[in-house]
């Protein structure tokens, strides 16, 4: 069983190896400009190294959870086949025009040629902005949500009607007005990200508290829990599954808002991944657009992975608290 699984995993890893070999030894299609193959190969090689380490460390040594290893492997099949098909169909056989459908070699070369603008400055400023908007949203939405969810009167008379009216309003429409009212574009972008992330987190926190079994609160009170303990040890962990759903939606919205806000603010000239995509869209430079989209995907994946870790830690604490 273990052996057959190992072989399966090795086959998955070898998809990437085959892609590298193909890329190196088969000539590019005639309609493609001659592109350096180094960066794409390096990327695939790094992927192989990462997968190998997951395979050895997780599968053979059993240090990672079985499900985790399987999920990573399943996902890599999808990515491996995607890169393989992209390389063969577009790069080597030259189907479709090369302007709108760039080959993987030319896309990945962008990371080298635009290294400082795209990979360093745009990525870092996007991540910083995202955190500046998203972190205050979390810090405000969760306490307010817990408080409102706990006080039925405040919720029914004031908070619910307000949330019902304002929460679904698309936050991006505030971008132009925020740029006008706030002193700098950066602040406007951060403010709108904050608005975009705040409402889903808040609504889900309230929902989590409202649907929390009231008997737990009564039991905690009977056992002499103070109001502060009630919030930190009972309500927050109890509402956490719902809160985490809200954090997820809030993150998606924050990303959308960030991309748009950067695109609009971009005419004022500052780097950022959303700005990069929209700027080069005006120049019809699809290699750079695809490169930036892939980079955004990578940032999102890494961010989500870190986020899931944090979430699991909090949930682990909840299990401990319940014991």
């Amino acid at each position: 069983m273990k052996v057959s699984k190992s072989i399966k995993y090795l086959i998955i890893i070898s998809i990437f190896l085959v892609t590298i070999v193909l890329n190196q030894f088969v000539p590019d299609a005639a309609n493609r400009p001659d592109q350096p193959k180094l960066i794409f190969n390096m990327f695939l090689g790094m992927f192989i190294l990462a997968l190998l380490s997951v395979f050895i460390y997780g599968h053979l040594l059993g240090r990672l959870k079985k499900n985790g290893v399987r999920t990573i492997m399943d996902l890599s099949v999808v990515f491996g086949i995607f890169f393989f098909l992209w390389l063969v169909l577009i790069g080597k056989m030259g189907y479709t025009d090369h302007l709108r459908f760039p080959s993987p070699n030319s896309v990945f070369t962008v990371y080298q040629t635009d290294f400082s603008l795209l990979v360093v400055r745009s990525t870092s400023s996007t991540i910083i902005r995202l955190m500046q908007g998203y972190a205050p949203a979390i810090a405000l939405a969760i306490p307010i949500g817990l408080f409102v969810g706990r006080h039925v009167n405040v919720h029914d008379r004031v908070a619910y009607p307000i949330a019902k009216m304002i929460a679904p309003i698309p936050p991006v429409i505030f971008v132009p007005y925020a740029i006008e009212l706030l002193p700098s574009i950066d602040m406007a972008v951060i403010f709108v990200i904050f608005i975009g992330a705040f409402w889903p987190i808040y609504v889900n926190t309230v929902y989590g508290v409202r649907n929390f079994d009231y008997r737990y609160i009564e039991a905690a009170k009977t056992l002499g829990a103070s109001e502060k303990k009630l919030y930190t040890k009972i309500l927050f962990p109890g509402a956490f599954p719902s809160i985490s759903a809200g954090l997820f939606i809030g993150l998606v919205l924050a990303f959308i808002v960030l991309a748009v806000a950067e695109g609009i603010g971009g005419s004022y000239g500052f780097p950022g991944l959303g700005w990069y995509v929209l700027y080069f869209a005006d120049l019809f430079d699809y290699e750079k657009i695809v490169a930036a989209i892939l980079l955004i995907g990578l940032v999102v994946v890494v961010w989500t992975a870190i986020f899931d870790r944090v979430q699991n830690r909090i949930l682990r604490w909840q299990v401990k608290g319940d014991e």
Partner: protein
Amino acid sequence: MSSKTNIGLRYLISVAVFPLIIILNLMLPDAANRPDQPKNVLNSLLIVYFGILSIYVLYGHILNKQPEVRVQMVSDISLIFGTFILIWVITVGKLGFLNTHSFPDPNTVFKVYMTDFDFLTYESSKASIIRAFIGYFLALATAIPLGILAGRNLRAFSVSYPFSKVTAHIPPIVYLPYAVAIFPSINHAIIFIIFIGAFWPILINTMFGVYNIDPKIIEFAKILGANDKRILAKVVVPAAMPYILAGSLIGLVVSFVLLTAGEMVGANAGLGFYLMYYFDVGYFDKVVAGILLISFWVFFWITFGFDLVQSRLLRWQRKIG
């Protein structure tokens, strides 16, 4: 009895705010720094709202034809909305706080709906709503069947769940420039990103809802002699319905976000385009009018479209509760 009079008083206050605003607006002169504006558009909109609200409260509260909770919610929302307009009229319009350029007064803003009737109120709304609905219904029509398929098949679920969780995080707006290149027009491209944006939350929630159905329920249905088709229609879909609806609501909100985002970045018609066009020119009364109109449409479709469908589809939940 006393609580009934209290509720009646509350309703009276939230209804009475609107005539109060109209009277104040008519009687008090505009602030000196404000240009002289016609007041009739704001006033007539408030009269229409006042009429609808009072008929609703009469019908729902006094004749008892509506659930009390719903009447209370409508009246609370109206009170907050009315207070907002009241403060806006007094501080900005009548007392003339803040500068006229970035903070237009309500009479100026609401007048825009009349002067720009063709461009804003009719054409832009029509273009935006048609776009949003084509994308959203395409997403519903594909994501729900696919979600049910993936949720019922364990292997498909274990592959597609992590995959969709990764893909769903990528903000669909970044596909827009590329979609413009591939699709024949910007209109198709915006519909496409609305579709993508609504697709993932609906798919994930449907998958999750179907996957989490207690297998015992399906076993029971089998024992009682139901065939596959009947199990799907009578057991699986209703059991997953709360999840499907939760996903559909997120999808609807996200599709409005993407609609306006897409229009602001690249369209040549629609509410988002209107907003950006007048932002670039620097007419903030029109920008605020656009923001209010978009908010109105989103609120309208979610409250009168989605909530009604939801309460109809989840009738069984209320019966059990």
